Each structure stands twice: as structure tokens, then as C-alpha cells.
């Protein structure tokens, strides 16, 4: 058991000492993200995900065919209503006729090509980047240069999803790895705090525990554990929520367009289309700017000036460093037994984690709230009042 304990502590310290580049070469979520969002990934195995939405032509043809059938049925109903003198049927036909015309317009717009879709997402993402840059994260280069090729279309959509995936997965593992490394160091402090010098021959004398007061370090680690675990869970959850959205919500779009062609399923179809617009288009586009800031700070040794709050709130250490560089510094300072500066550095890491976690969580919440509000609005516009009236999604969220 003692041997296992030292192996665990050594593993944690080893992770800490390996550094950013090494760890990221091992924990490489590029494979995971490329599986899901890369051009060579598994997206090609699912035929409804093409490089352009308008390549799925037969759905467009089926939808227009259904609308044509509905027009024919409406014409027959109008004839029956006019011939038998049933005003209710005449009113119904006039209403449905306008709805069917709107359906045709919507089908043409939605299937008008990925350029329309990706153009909207690129615009929203770049607008968010501009806002973040003006708030102080100047000089940060996003993972994906959006809009560089306006005709790329679908590739920009993949780029946004891939960028968010890589950032959040890397952030999650770096948080956990950094905390594990810090915990390895806290083992040392726990051992040191338990060091006792007994000068009590025959039961009389003094007993000294010179390092018993190193409890603040342990308290900080205790505070960090549930926080970091929660942030890691949220980030993983967001990534795989986006996987679900990326792969399954286009199917909802197709189903929604088909269902909206019939009067009795029009509201349900509008709901599905609103879900697609809200979460496939707006959610990743809104969350993307927040990931650019996080990515920038992880890859840079110096995050000062990159936070909206500025660097002055960070402790007496000159900069707030990324976790792995921070832990390398700590490891060196343990050897030098510089207790006071270690405390400051640990507190820096604590502040860094809090700020980073808060920023990311706020980014997720803000993106979710805006997407949800837009979803409600589009659902109401598309004739699906049930989502809004019952606050169903609010309960779900």
C-alpha cells in the first residue's frame, strides 16, 4: 500500500513535470474532435451530412411534392366548400393556401445552400470575436480563420464546431491534469505538516511539529477539486451536446420541413425547424468567441492583459501562467523550499482557475440563453406556440 501510494504521488508529480507540450502531445483530443467534426472523420459515414445541404436534393424534391399535393387537396376542398356552401371550409382553405406559399419560400431558403447557413454563422462568430478583442484579448488568433473562403460553406461550419471541441476538451484535460499535479505537491505538504520532532524522553519534554501550519495549501486544493470537476463535466457535456446537435439536428430540419407541409403537423414541424435554427446555427456561433480567448491563454505563457479583468488582479507573481508552466515553477520552488512564494503561486493558479472557469461557464450560459430565446421566437414565428406557451424547454433546461 505504501508502494502504491508513492507510485500515485510520483505519477501526479510526473504529470506536473512533463509540461504543456508533452502532455498535450499525449492527451490529444484532436483525434476525438477530428472524428466528429473533421473532414476525414465519421461524418462521411452518415449520408445526410454532406458538404452542402443542397446536395441532399431528394428531400427538397419530396418537400416540394408534398406542398404541391397539399395545394391540390386545398383546391378540391375549395370546390367542395363553394359547391356545398360551407363557409368554414372556404376560410380554412384561404388560411392554408397562404401557409403553403410560405412553406415553399421556407423550403427554398433553407435548402438554398450551405453558403447562406455558413455565412450567417461566420458573421455571428466574427462579430463576437471583435467584441472580445475590443475588451482586451487583443492579438488572439482564433483556431479557425472564418470567412476566409466565402465559398467554402460547410467547411466553415465544421471549423466552428471543431474549434469549440478542441478548446473545451483541451481545457478540460488541462484543468484535471493541472489539479492532479498540484495534488501531488500537496502530498508533499501533507507529509511535511505531519513531521514531528519528539523530545520527550520518559514522557516529559516537548514535541514540535514545525510545518504543521501548511494547511492553507490543502484548503485551496480542497476548494479547487469540486470546482474543477464541475467545470470539466460541463465542458465535456457541452462538447458532446454539440456532437448531438451537429449530427442529428439536420435530420430534424428535414423532418420539420416535411411535417410543416401538412396543416395538422405544421406546429410540430415548426418546432423542429426552430430547434435547428436555435442550436445548430446560433449556439456554436455564439460560443465560439469565448473559446478563442481561452485557447489563446492556454497556449501563451503569459495571459496578462488578455482577460477582460486585466492582469492587475492577479497576485504578486508577475503573470498568471498556464497550469503546466505554473506547476513546473512550483516544482522548482519546492526544491528551494521557498514556502511563501509557493503560496502565492498556488493562489495564482487558484485565481486563474476561478477566472477561467467563470469565463467559460458564463460563455456557455450566455450562449445557451440567447439560443433558447431565439428558438422561442422562431418557434412562435413558424407556428409552434406550444414551446413558448408552456415554457417546456425552460423546464427541460
Amino acid at each position, binding site marked *: 500500500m505504501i508502494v502504491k501510494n508513492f507510485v500515485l504521488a510520483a505519477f501526479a508529480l510526473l504529470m506536473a513535470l512533463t509540461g504543456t507540450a508533452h502532455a498535450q502531445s499525449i492527451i490529444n483530443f484532436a483525434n476525438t474532435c477530428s472524428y466528429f467534426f473533421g473532414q476525414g472523420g*465519421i461524418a462521411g459515414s452518415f449520408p*445526410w451530412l454532406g458538404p452542402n445541404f443542397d446536395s441532399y436534393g431528394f428531400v427538397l424534391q419530396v418537400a416540394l411534392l408534398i406542398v404541391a399535393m397539399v395545394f391540390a387537396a386545398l383546391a378540391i376542398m375549395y370546390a367542395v366548400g363553394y359547391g356545398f356552401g360551407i363557409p368554414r371550409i372556404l376560410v380554412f382553405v384561404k388560411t392554408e393556401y397562404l401557409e403553403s406559399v410560405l412553406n415553399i419560400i421556407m423550403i427554398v431558403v433553407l435548402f438554398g445552400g450551405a453558403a447562406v447557413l455558413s455565412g450567417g454563422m461566420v458573421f455571428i462568430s466574427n462579430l463576437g470575436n471583435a467584441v472580445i478583442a475590443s475588451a482586451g484579448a487583443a492579438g488572439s488568433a482564433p483556431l479557425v480563420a472564418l470567412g476566409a473562403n466565402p465559398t467554402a460553406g460547410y467547411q466553415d461550419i465544421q471549423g466552428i464546431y471543431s474549434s469549440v471541441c478542441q478548446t473545451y476538451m483541451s481545457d478540460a484535460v488541462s484543468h484535471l491534469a493541472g489539479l492532479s499535479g498540484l495534488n501531488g505537491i500537496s502530498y508533499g505538504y501533507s507529509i511535511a505538516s505531519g513531521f514531528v520532532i519528539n523530545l520527550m524522553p520518559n514522557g516529559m519534554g516537548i514535541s514540535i511539529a514545525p510545518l504543521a501550519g501548511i494547511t492553507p495549501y490543502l484548503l485551496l486544493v480542497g476548494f479547487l477539486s469540486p470546482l474543477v470537476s464541475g467545470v470539466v463535466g460541463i465542458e465535456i457535456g457541452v462538447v458532446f451536446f454539440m456532437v448531438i446537435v451537429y449530427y442529428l439536428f439536420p435530420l430534424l430540419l428535414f423532418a420539420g420541413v416535411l411535417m410543416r407541409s401538412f396543416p395538422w*403537423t405544421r406546429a410540430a414541424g415548426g418546432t423542429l425547424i426552430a430547434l435547428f435554427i436555435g442550436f445548430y446555427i446560433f449556439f456554436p456561433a455564439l460560443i465560439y468567441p469565448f473559446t478563442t480567448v481561452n485557447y489563446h491563454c492556454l497556449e501563451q505563457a503569459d495571459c496578462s492583459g488578455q482577460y477582460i479583468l486585466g492582469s492587475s488582479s492577479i497576485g504578486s507573481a508577475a503573470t498568471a501562467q498556464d497550469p503546466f508552466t505554473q506547476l513546473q515553477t512550483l516544482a522548482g520552488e519546492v526544491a528551494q523550499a521557498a514556502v511563501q512564494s509557493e503560496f502565492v503561486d498556488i493562489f495564482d493558479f487558484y485565481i486563474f482557475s476561478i477566472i477561467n472557469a467563470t469565463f467559460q461557464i458564463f460563455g456557455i450560459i450566455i450562449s445557451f440563453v440567447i439560443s433558447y430565446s431565439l428558438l422561442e421566437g422562431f418557434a412562435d414565428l413558424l407556428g409552434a406556440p406550444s414551446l413558448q406557451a408552456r415554457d417546456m424547454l425552460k423546464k427541460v433546461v
Partner: protein
Amino acid sequence: MLDPILMFAASCSSGVGGLLCSPITGWFPFASLGVLVIMLIASLIYGLSPIMGRSEMRTWARLKMYETLFSFLLVIIFSGFALMVYTINPIPLFTNLNLVPGAGSVAAGIPAVWGVHSDCTQVTDIYGLSECDLFNFNSNIVYYLNNVIGGATILFSSTPSFQLKYSFNPAISNFGLSLGLTLDSLPIAEFLEGSTLAIGSLIILSQVQLLLLDAAMLIFAILLPLGLVARIFGITRSFGGAMIAFALGIGLIFPIMVSITYGFLVQVLSVLAVQPAINAINAVALLSDPTGPVLAIVNSVFEWLGIALAGTLVLPLITFTIVNTFIIDFSQAVGERMDFLSLLTSVA
């Protein structure tokens, strides 16, 4: 967990379902009889209204005849629709979309234990396919919880304590140095424990979905004809419409959504097996980079946790939201507004 293929041994295709699986021969006579009765009554009133001098009764009778004819038209349409649901095999369509575990999987050659537990290509209807997909997903998650997270949690959750003592003079007690340590759990262990608890709780929701899928076929077979017949009569028209919407929502839309969503997830699980992590644990990797295999396992744990969260939390919420929206809006169109999830929350 029961194999869904066995549970569907009494499916309609084998002819055991009887009345429930014969929407036309089973329920059509009842609907026809109801229509005949209403038409006779309405015709009688239509004929007697001039004698009685009540023109509004003539209008009422005409309206009732139109509504009854429309309801009978719905009976014909939905009977044919139900026949299609029972007889059309969805496997070819879903296979083309690569949503059927066991056939044309995204990654071939993955050991069955980590991907497909039941070959879903053998089912013949949408209900069997949806149960097979959800069963495969649940089996993967349960297997993962039992083997990977459980083992890792036990490994990391050891909280040993030890004490070293050095005596300056063994003959004198309490005269020396002592060093003691009791270790708390690693953050990774706390993370894994929390994940195990969360997924272990969420898997219950997934099992509830499986039970609901069992009932979906019955709900469709019973409530749809009931609703259609009820809609013929004026006083039960709203109720009948609500039953039709409920039957279509739970009995058809729900299994279709489960087939699509969980079929996709199981195919993804087939790709994200822990084989990369297992392959990384070899002598060369351990000697050259001891952290590599462990970090590769962490990588795989993250992926599995993400898939598990998506399948046990996100997908049920999306599925039930869409099904409930369909029920609400369709019931409003054909009868009385019905909110399925509100009923559940009221009971809860």
C-alpha cells in the same frame, strides 16, 4: 437486461398479435357501425326538421353528417397508415443512413463487447429497431461503468495512511522523529466517483425509456383505434382526437426518434472503443513514456463520459420535448389539447 429481440417474439409479423395488430379487420367494423348509426340519426333529423319547422336542426344535421364523414375518412387513412407501420421494414432505410448497429458499422472489426451487443439487422419493425438500439447503448454504458470506471475508481480511491518513526535512542521512548500521512482521494478519483454516481443515476432514465418503448406498440395498437372510433361521435370527438395524437406521439414518433438518436450513438460508440487506450499499454510505451498509457485511458474515459452524458441526459430531453410538442400541437388540431409531460410532472 433482456434481449429486445426475444421480447419481440410476439410481434405482429409473426401473427401472434391478433386483434391488436389488425387495425383494419379488428376495428373497422366498429368504426363503420358508429358511422352508420350517426348518419341514420342525422338523416332522420334532417328529414324531420322541415316538418318541425326548425331550420337550425337541418343545419346541425348537415354539419354532423360532414363531420362524421370526415371522421370516417380519418379512420380509413389511419387504418392504412397503421398497416404500413406494422408491415414496412425500416431496416433498409436506416441501413442506408448507417443507423443500424450490426450492419455496415462505421468501424468494422470492433469487438462486440464494446460496440454492438445485439444485431439489430434481424428486427422487422420500428419498435424492435428502437429497442435494439437503446438496449445496445444501455449495455455499453453499464459495461463501461462496471469495468472501466469502477476499476479506476477503486484504484484511485485508496486512502492509505502510514507513519515513519525514528528514535534517537531506542531505549528511550518518545525521543526521536515521526512522520505521518493520511492521504485524501486524488481529484481524478473524486471526478470518477462523481461521474459514476451521475451516470449510474441517469442510466435509470434510460431504462425507463426502454420500458416505455415496450409499451409503445401497445399504445399505438390500442389508443389509435380507440381514438378514431371515439372521434366519430360528437360528445367524444375531442377525447378521440387527443387519443389519436397521444397514440401517434408515443406509439410512433417516440420509437422513430429513439431509433435515429440511439442508433447514431451506438455507431459512434463502435468507433470510440477503448482499444486505443488498451493498445497504448504495452512494454515499449510504458518504458518510453509512463504517462502515455494512463493519459490515453484518461482520453478514452473523457470520450465515454461525454457519450454517456449525451445519451442519458441530452437525448431523452430532446426526444421527449419533440414528442410532447407533437402531441400538444396534433391533439390541438384534431381534438382536445393534451400535454403529456405536464401529466408526468403532475404525477411526480
